[in-house]
């Protein structure tokens, strides 16, 4: 029987989505529903002298108004849940509504609950806030200097942590190296912009003492826990439902004050309460990504061997430490400084810095895009400095295929790899030599063609729970599945993760259907409801397939083992004498003696004739905890033509060769690559969240923040190599973030390569025409 594993079947989730029959959080409607709106600070940094809600309380349709002072003893602060060790982490309290001070534009000040959305919004205008403005500071490097405005009383110089990573002896390497270079690299702040804004709808039943909260969540079990901390309700009284979720990209991982506020209001008022942000609120309140100022140094030999890397990074955290924020620029960033290369000496220091801005947390790639970008940029600068082809420099430093598992200087061990294989494939697709020849010719004609190559590897499939504990992650990183077979032989898999666009309702059904020899239609995957699904840790860090998919596989194997026991009993045969063939257990040598999966499902569920000591029913639960992370890798290549008159960048070709191990559904893998690459090209070319000096977000709507449009983006050519991971039973690695991780340096390297004859070495992202043009002018000026 042909397997479904490896087949690009259509997605199971799509019929409801293409017909408008899916239920997203804001679609939830309940009898007696009230609507919440939250008054947000208009100052980046100010003392709150007075918050007068008297008029708002009187307004038509308003049911209740709460301030920070009202909630101080009733709702706990928003927790930070990644307590990175050995970095002197300081996490000041983040009240759900500001009490005495606001620390970013968007910080919550008051909650209005009303009979309609409009009434709630209108009442916000009636609240009078008396602010005593303080100085703002938006740049993380500046915020860490003496004399900068102080956000929190007990965080000197706004430095939340100082984290170090070391391997080998970087100082010695630099002292001895014949070639050294340094570059200041900026990773601008980005707005994740899931197309569905965040929402929460809470319904407390005073009779049962149960709170049900629908949340736009990538990880409902984490939200249940965080909600329990904030509302002080015990965890077993809380049910979190993440229904259809319209994209997340990291922004729907954290716990936010907002879901605690509607939950509290529902508890207090005994009626359901819903809050939905609009896009401008989303841009002020939902976490941002990146925001690094990086000082990077690389050293090596004259013939292209990298001997050391040093960094000093200021990572902006915003006004408070969001749920996973401390782990992003440290564990998920600094530990990846070796990339796919054997770099013997590494020393990095990362300062996490509070600034009067929206909190920063995981955004697609989360720490790894920043690491990949700085490394890939430095390698191109190094290659140029020693006059060597950047591809050859990479080749010379890539970890050889026969060296896996390989432990890099930062101390982590890469599972498997074939870095040269992916590089060769990508070079062949682009015909590298031919392009270089064309480029040389074009340069003679005064045209600027460029090529950027990124060889990357990344850490994902988060991860062994023991490691999670060791690095201060406030949870486990295993995942879970219940595979339940119904009497009629159809199956449901209840999973701990929460896909929100990645298609696991399909790919996990493929895994189960293969195991049981069923058509995929006979398997349903259920996710997102803490009442139905076992404890899981969510969908992020490209972990769902590697970790939760493995739990599904293991649970299905357990079910099958039990079915086999029952089959042996019914057929009066030894288990050892049974073969699994075409969806049946068949007695070896007696093809007419068999039990189909459907028959066994019925017999197990009615339990009329069970083997001695075997319980009725046919289901199994598995909690899968991997032995290591997975490390997908690949090579991306981009060719561009830059118009030196206007600074405009035209992408000629974009090639992505990724290795995420065996692919369950290649169509879905390709979709992940497309989306990830375009998101990265947005970062490289046009996206940047801009604050002014006073901490006002200038890119506060979709009018000002440049999410890529169809007409601006190229077609992506994809290909793959397949290197299984030894750390999970499927052999799979993640692919949700590779595109974003690889594409940013690929594009920037291509543009810098194009402009090499003009003396341009580095341009800060995003590469808008204005910036490229300015870089050209500066280089020309410098040359004169």
């Amino acid at each position, binding site marked *: 029987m042909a397997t479904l594993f490896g087949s690009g079947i259509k997605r199971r989730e799509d019929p409801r989505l293409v*017909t*408008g029959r899916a239920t997203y959080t*804001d679609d939830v409607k309940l009898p007696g529903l009230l609507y919440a709106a939250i008054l947000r600070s208009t100052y980046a940094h100010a003392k709150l002298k007075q918050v007068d809600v008297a008029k708002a309380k009187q307004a038509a349709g308003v049911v209740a108004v709460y301030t920070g002072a009202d909630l101080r003893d009733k709702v706990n602060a928003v927790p930070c849940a990644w307590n990175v060790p050995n970095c002197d982490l300081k996490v000041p309290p983040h009240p759900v509504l500001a009490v005495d001070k606001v620390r970013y534009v968007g910080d919550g000040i008051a909650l209005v609950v009303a009979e309609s959305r*409009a009434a709630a919004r209108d009442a916000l205008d009636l609240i009078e806030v008396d602010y005593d403005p303080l100085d703002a500071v938006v740049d993380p490097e500046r915020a860490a200097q003496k004399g900068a405005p102080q956000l929190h009383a007990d965080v000197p110089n706004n430095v939340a942590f100082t984290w170090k990573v070391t391997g080998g002896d970087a100082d010695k390497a630099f002292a001895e190296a014949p070639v050294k270079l340094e570059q200041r690299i900026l990773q601008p702040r980005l707005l994740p912009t899931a197309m569905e*804004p965040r929402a929460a709808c809470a319904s407390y039943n005073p009779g049962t003492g149960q709170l049900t909260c629908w949340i736009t969540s990538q990880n409902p079990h984490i939200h249940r826990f965080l909600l329990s901390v904030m509302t002080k309700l015990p965890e077993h009284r809380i049910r979190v439902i993440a229904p259809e979720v*319209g*994209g997340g990209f990291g922004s729907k991982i954290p716990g936010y004050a907002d879901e605690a506020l509607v939950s509290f209001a529902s508890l207090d008022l005994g009626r359901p309460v819903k809050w939905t942000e609009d896009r401008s609120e989303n841009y002020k309140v939902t976490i941002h990504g990146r925001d690094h100022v990086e000082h990077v140094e690389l050293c090596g030999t004259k013939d292209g061997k990298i001997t050391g890397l040093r960094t000093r990074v200021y990572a902006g955290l915003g006004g408070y430490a969001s749920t996973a924020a401390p782990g992003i620029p440290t564990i998920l960033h600094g530990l990846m400084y070796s990339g796919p290369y054997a770099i013997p000496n590494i020393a990095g220091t990362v300062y996490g810095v509070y600034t009067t801005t929206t909190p920063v947390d995981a955004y697609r790639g989360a720490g790894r895009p920043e690491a990949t970008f700085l490394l890939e940029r430095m390698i191109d600068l190094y290659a140029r400095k020693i006059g060597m082809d950047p591809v050859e420099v990479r080749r010379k430093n890539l970890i050889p295929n026969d060296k896996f598992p390989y432990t890099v200087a930062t101390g982590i061990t890469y599972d498997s790899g074939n870095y040269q294989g992916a590089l060769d494939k990508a070079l062949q697709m682009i015909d590298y030599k031919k392009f270089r020849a064309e480029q040389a010719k074009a340069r003679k004609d005064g045209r600027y063609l460029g090529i950027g190559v990124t060889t990357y590897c990344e850490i994902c499939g988060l991860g062994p729970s023991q490691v999670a504990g060791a690095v201060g992650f406030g949870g486990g990183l295993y995942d879970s599945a219940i595979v339940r077979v119904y009497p009629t032989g159809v199956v449901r898999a209840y999973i701990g993760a929460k896909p929100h666009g990645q298609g696991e309702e399909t790919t996990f059904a493929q895994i189960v259907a293969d195991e049981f020899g069923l058509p995929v239609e006979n398997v349903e995957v259920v996710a997102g409801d803490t009442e139905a699904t076992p404890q899981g840790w969510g969908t992020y860090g490209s972990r769902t397939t590697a970790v939760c998919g493995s739990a599904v596989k293991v649970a299905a194997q357990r079910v099958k083992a039990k079915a086999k026991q029952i089959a042996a009993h019914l057929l009066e045969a030894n288990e050892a004498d049974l073969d699994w063939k075409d969806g049946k257990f068949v007695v070896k040598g007696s093809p007419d003696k068999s039990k189909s999966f459907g028959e066994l499902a019925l017999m197990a569920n009615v339990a009329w004739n069970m083997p001695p000591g075997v319980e009725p029913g046919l289901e199994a639960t598995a909690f899968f905890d991997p032995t290591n992370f997975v490390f997908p890798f690949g090579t991306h290549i981009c060719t561009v033509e830059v118009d030196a008159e206007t600074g405009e960048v035209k992408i000629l070709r974009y090639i992505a060769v990724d290795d995420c191990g065996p692919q369950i559904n290649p169509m879905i893998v390709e979709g992940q690559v497309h989306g990830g*690459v375009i998101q990265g090209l947005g970062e490289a070319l046009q996206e940047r969240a801009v604050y002014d000096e006073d901490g006002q977000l200038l890119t506060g*709507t979709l009018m000002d923040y440049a*999410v890529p449009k169809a007409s601006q983006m190229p077609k992506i050519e994809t290909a793959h190599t397949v290197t299984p991971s030894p750390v999970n039973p499927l052999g799979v690695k993640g692919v949700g973030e590779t595109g974003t991780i690889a594409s940013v340096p690929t594009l920037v390297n291509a543009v810098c390569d194009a402009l090499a004859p003009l003396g341009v070495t580095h341009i800060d992202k995003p590469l808008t025409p204005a910036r490229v043009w300015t870089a050209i002018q500066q280089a020309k000026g410098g040359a004169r």
Partner: protein
Amino acid sequence: MKRSITLDVNGATRTTEVEPRALLASVLRDQLDLTGTHIGCDTSQCGACTVLLDGRAVKSCTVLAVQAEGKQITTIEGLSGDGRLHPLQQAFWEKHGLQCGFCTPGMILTAVDLLSQNPTPSEAEIRHALEGNLCRCTGYQNIVAAIQSAAGALR
């Protein structure tokens, strides 16, 4: 002051009370329970709210509900009937033209309008027609492929 309006939605006549300032998008969602029309922004950029008004794609967040009186409104829920998918819905499914699905109703309805005006659009024309519809998940490539494929099927 609320006033009563009668809307022709997906072939049915629906009467509801609205504030004059109420946007069509909100009324469809909150009052007529047609939640397939999504709201992704507050500045008319994202296109998630796109519906057909007399057959033409319109962002329902830019239309007051009172202005839609007397016009035929088609939302994603009304695009197909009899348990059959519209060729564009089918093509989005087949070509993996969606991931989270939030932009999808707007994308499909925009594409319906495009193909009714231009049954054989080039890739560039399709990308241009999607100018007002944002997708954060797919990178657009498979959306373009879906529209191309539906164009073939509709011809």
